[in-house]
């Protein structure tokens, strides 16, 4: 292939093309002349010769670009002849080669040993048959040319299909089907028929039998007979003439032959001896040269880093010259020894340089042990690596602590000096999200160190403990004592412990409280998390890292003692993560009241705001992040925390209602996004009460059961109790809210009542005549209507409950007022009765036992009206009142109808 696309020096040549084969078929090993085009520009250019897929390059002989001679490989069947040249690539062919195996017949000469057991036995067994042995020579009994263009079935297929049969015509297990498939697979039926004719013809010729065979080979038979006779005659002559037996003369002749042969070869043998001695001398010289050159060679190889070569050289030198008496050799050998000493030191030093790969270490240790250095290099290496790892871990801690400190300083400066850098709560939160806190980076670094280097350490150590490191050095029995094995395990555990404690120091400092003070200090003291939100957001990530490390180490089959530290750490991290996530959620929920927008959405008769949904979302998100595990203590804590979390919304709502007024101003200053909720939008206390009440109800009835389902699905235990306590908290809140609201509402209504009742200095005793239902009753009803409207606008479901309560307190007040009256004249009694009746009837739909009894008590205080005229008057006045107030009253009634 040309490497210069436009170069005229080396044009890209055409691929080789085979167009001629001589011969086109033959047995394995036959010489084939391959002709064609571009068969290579010289012998070296030809890089591949394949005949029927068998590589024949070794036997190939490049003659010219159009001619190559080679010998075929063991091929059978038709196949391509493909040549490959450097200049032209893989070639093609227009002709095919057919390989076949020949079975040498009994009458054929053969240059190789022929296993006749199959053919001859077969022939003997069938000796009564009249067919002549020449039949065996025919390897194409049908006389058909195999002109098929490739067969569908390969030889392997056939072998599989006919494992029993063979295609050998004289073999006992000859299988005609297989034979036809193998040799005449593509012949047409006509051809096969012609072949059959041909076969019949030849077999007819052969049926003349041995006679025809004899006739055909008569000269050969005559020759055989003549030679046999001649031999016989000679033997007879020898027997008669010779005095000695024929054996003796033979022996003599052989002796003579031997003698002569010895003479002939004497020269050669002598020369061989000479050559041998010369070779020996050369060997000795070589050995000396090796020794003298050894120091320089060693130096060179050491520089190249081929320690293996040095070691083998040294061993060879040692076996040759260690016990030498010759001064010169001693001197040189001494130098070699000193170099080896140097090398030993160098290797030891190299071994102590970390980090390096496990293979490097193993190689170095092997070299060192084969150099028979004193001490235990592998153990030293392990100790060193242990120290290094511990150092790395501490270093990592120091670095990150330092970073944190710097960062903390900067932040502090930033806040004090620039003041506005962190005004927005939002931005600081975001930046924390994008830049993980130092603890997290610290954990990542630590895990990286352990992940990278601990496996190597452990592998090296376990190899050492099993004695694998010395298998190649092998001369000395360096069985490792159990003491060192234990020590190694201790070291390993130490590393794991160090890692676990370092992580604990950063994330779970409280778990290290029990440690002695100076030891505790070593693991570093981290700043407490002041910003809860940023810290816990990264916790699941941290847990994931630690867990993946644990599974990695577990897969390495580390000893249980060491793994325990990591495992405990993982558990602690997980529970810590859970706790802080819960705490985080609780905090979030508590802070939710900042995000109330007071937009009311009606849902199933009760108005709610977005807050319950936000609450639900937070809880769900928290749940999604956490998967419960099977530690009982942790489970308890989990359920406690979940209860707390659910309750916390109640606190939030509580705060929302009762503290907003106080804190609203404060929040508006410090927290940016509260500003969007302007004071104009903030509803009045009463409205807020009703809204929150609605939310509270919604949460208790809808959200909590839903969440409980989720908790149960996530496998949290004991949820019933949790739900119960949570519901309790909500109903408490509900009561409190309700109380507050009714108080808020009924007080003014009730207050007005007394004023209205005694307006115009009315005295029940001195009243001249009844004046009809006075306006204070109407006023009270109107007030009630306004309450009704307010509640209805927010949450129709509460109306009945709310109104009943208000009516109750109203009735109570009326009762009180009436009972305080000092006495009634007739007109006063009628007046009082009329007004009471009017009130009672209008509020009928919101009456309950308490209000009814209050009214009843009130009636009892009033003297009864007996005269028919008065009764009639009473009825009339009541009716006028009812017809006047029809519209107002209708609002109660229709609503009462609604709320049923």
């Amino acid at each position, binding site marked *: 292939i040309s490497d210069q696309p436009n170069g005229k020096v080396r044009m890209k040549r055409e691929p080789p093309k085979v167009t001629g*084969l001589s*011969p*086109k*078929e033959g047995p394995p090993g036959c010489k084939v002349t391959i002709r064609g085009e571009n068969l290579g520009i010289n012998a070296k250019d030809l890089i591949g010769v394949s005949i029927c897929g068998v590589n024949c390059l070794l036997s190939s002989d490049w003659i010219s670009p159009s001619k190559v001679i080679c010998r075929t490989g063991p091929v059978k069947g038709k196949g391509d002849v493909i040549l490959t040249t450097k200049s032209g690539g893989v070639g093609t062919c*227009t002709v095919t080669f057919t390989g076949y195996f020949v079975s040498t017949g009994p009458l054929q000469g053969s240059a190789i040993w022929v296993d006749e057991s199959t053919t001859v036995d077969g022939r003997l067994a069938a000796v009564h048959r009249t067919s002549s042995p020449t039949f065996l020579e025919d390897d194409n009994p049908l006389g058909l040319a195999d002109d098929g263009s490739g067969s569908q079935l390969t030889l392997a297929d056939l072998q599989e299909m006919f494992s029993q049969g063979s295609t050998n015509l004289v073999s006992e297990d000859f299988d005609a089907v297989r034979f036809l498939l193998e040799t005449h697979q593509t012949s047409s039926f006509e051809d096969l028929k012609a072949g059959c004719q041909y076969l019949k013809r030849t077999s007819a010729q052969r049926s003349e039998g041995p006679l025809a065979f004899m006739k055909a080979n008569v000269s050969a038979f005559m020759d055989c007979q003549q030679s046999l006779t001649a031999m016989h005659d000679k033997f007879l002559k020898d027997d008669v003439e010779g005095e000695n037996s024929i054996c003796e003369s033979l022996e003599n002749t052989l002796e003579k032959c031997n003698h002569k042969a010895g003479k002939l070869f004497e020269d050669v043998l002598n020369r061989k001896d000479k050559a041998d001695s010369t070779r020996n001398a050369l060997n000795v010289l070589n050995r000396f040269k090796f020794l003298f050159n050894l120091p320089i060679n060693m130096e060179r190889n050491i520089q190249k880093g081929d320690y293996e070569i040095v070691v083998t050289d040294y061993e060879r030198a040692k076996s040759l010259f260690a016990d030498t008496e010759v001064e010169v050799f001693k001197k040189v050998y001494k130098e070699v020894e000193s170099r080896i000493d140097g090398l030993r030191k160098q290797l030891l030093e190299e071994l102590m340089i970390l980090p390096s790969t496990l293979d490097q270490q193993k190689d170095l240790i092997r070299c060192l042990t084969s150099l028979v250095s004193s001490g235990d290099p592998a153990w030293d290496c392990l100790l060193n690596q242990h120290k290094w790892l511990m150092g790395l871990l501490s270093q990592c801690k120091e670095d990150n602590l330092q970073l944190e400190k710097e960062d903390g300083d900067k932040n502090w400066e930033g806040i004090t000096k620039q003041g506005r850098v962190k005004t927005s709560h939002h931005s600081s939160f975001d930046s924390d999200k994008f830049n993980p806190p130092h603890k997290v980076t610290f954990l990542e670094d630590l895990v990286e160190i352990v992940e990278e280097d601990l496996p190597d350490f452990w592998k090296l150590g376990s190899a050492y403990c099993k004695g694998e490191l010395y298998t190649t050095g092998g001369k000395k029995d360096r069985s490792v004592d159990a003491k060192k094995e234990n020590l190694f395990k201790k070291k390993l555990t130490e590393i794991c412990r160090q890692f676990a404690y370092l992580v604990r120091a950063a994330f779970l400092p409280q778990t290290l409280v029990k440690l002695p003070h100076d030891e505790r200090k070593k693991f570093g003291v981290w700043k407490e998390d002041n910003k809860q939100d940023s810290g816990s957001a990264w916790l699941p990530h941290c847990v994931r890292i630690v867990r993946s490390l644990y599974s990695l180490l577990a897969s390495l089959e580390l000893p249980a003692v060491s793994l325990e530290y990591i495992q405990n750490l993982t558990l602690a991290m997980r529970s810590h993560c859970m706790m802080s996530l819960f705490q985080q959620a609780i905090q979030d929920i508590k802070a939710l009241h900042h995000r109330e927008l007071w937009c009311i959405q009606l849902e199933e008769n009760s108005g709610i705001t977005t807050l319950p949904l936000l609450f639900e979302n937070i809880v769900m998100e928290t749940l999604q992040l956490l998967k419960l595990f099977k530690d009982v203590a942790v489970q308890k804590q989990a359920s406690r925390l979940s209860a707390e979390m659910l309750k916390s919304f109640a606190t939030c709502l509580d705060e929302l209602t009762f503290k907003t007024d106080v804190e609203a101003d404060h929040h508006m200053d410090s927290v940016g996004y509260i500003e969007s909720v302007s004071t104009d939008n903030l509803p009045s206390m009463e409205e807020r009460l009703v809204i929150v009440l609605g939310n509270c109800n919604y949460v208790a009835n809808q959200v909590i059961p839903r969440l409980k389902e989720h908790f149960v699905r996530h496998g949290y235990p004991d949820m019933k109790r949790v739900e119960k306590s949570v519901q309790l908290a909500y109903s408490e809140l509900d009561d409190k809210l309700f109380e507050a609201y009714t108080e808020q509402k009924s007080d003014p209504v009730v207050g007005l009542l007394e004023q209205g009742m005694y307006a115009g200095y009315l005295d029940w005793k001195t009243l001249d005549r009844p004046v009809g239902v006075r306006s204070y009753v109407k006023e009270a009803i109107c007030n009630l209507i306004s309450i009704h409207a307010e509640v209805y606008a927010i949450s129709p479901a509460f109306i009945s409950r709310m109104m009943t309560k208000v009516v109750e307190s109203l009735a109570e007040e009326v009762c009180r007022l009436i009972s305080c009256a000092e006495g009634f004249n007739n007109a006063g009694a009628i007046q009082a009765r009329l007004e009471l009746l009017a009130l009672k009837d209008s509020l009928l739909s919101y009456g309950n036992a308490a209000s009814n009894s209050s009214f009843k008590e009130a009636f009892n205080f009033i003297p009864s009206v007996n005269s028919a005229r008065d009764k009639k008057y009473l009825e009339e006045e009541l009716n006028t009142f009812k017809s006047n107030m029809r519209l107002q009253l209708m609002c109660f009634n229709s609503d009462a109808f609604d709320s049923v």
Partner: protein
Amino acid sequence: MSKPKTQVIPLHKVIMVGSGGVGKSALTLQFMYDEFVEDYEPTKADSYRKKVILDGDEVKIDILDTAGQEDYAAIRDNYFRSGEGFLCVFSITEQESFQASSEFREQILRVKNDKNDRIPFVLVGNKSDLEERRQVSIEEAQAKAADWNVTYVETSAKTRANVDKVFFDLMREIRNHKAEDGQKQKQKTGKKQGGKKKKCVIL
């Protein structure tokens, strides 16, 4: 350059026959590779194939160079059966080889089983450069050719005289013979042939 289309380049199968040593392989190699081999090595069965331009059309010629020696007489039947045209070669310097050509002719006719004697066949007298050693006269050979109703050409593998001519003449004969055969076949089973052709197109 390569057109793996439905248009298949026709292939003509030529078989070299004749006694041993008359120059069958020499003629073949001269035709194929323009080289003349001096050293004699008896052939067993060689195969050659290449593209040539015959009267402006691209065709492929497949040459089977067979063994002249009597040893291989038995396997000739197989080879002859697959041949479409024959170059029967003898040496003009050897009378026996000329006589033997009759035997080859007979064997071919027997194997091909052609009643009309219309097998594409060219009688070739090789070694025409060795005029001084001629044993077979032109008249003699031409008489035989006329008797067989075939053409007779004298060639020299050494000088390349008439080498291309004999091969191209024979290919033309083969082409014409095939065309006639096709005609006959069509007359016999015209529709079937068409169907077959269509199948080829699909393939």
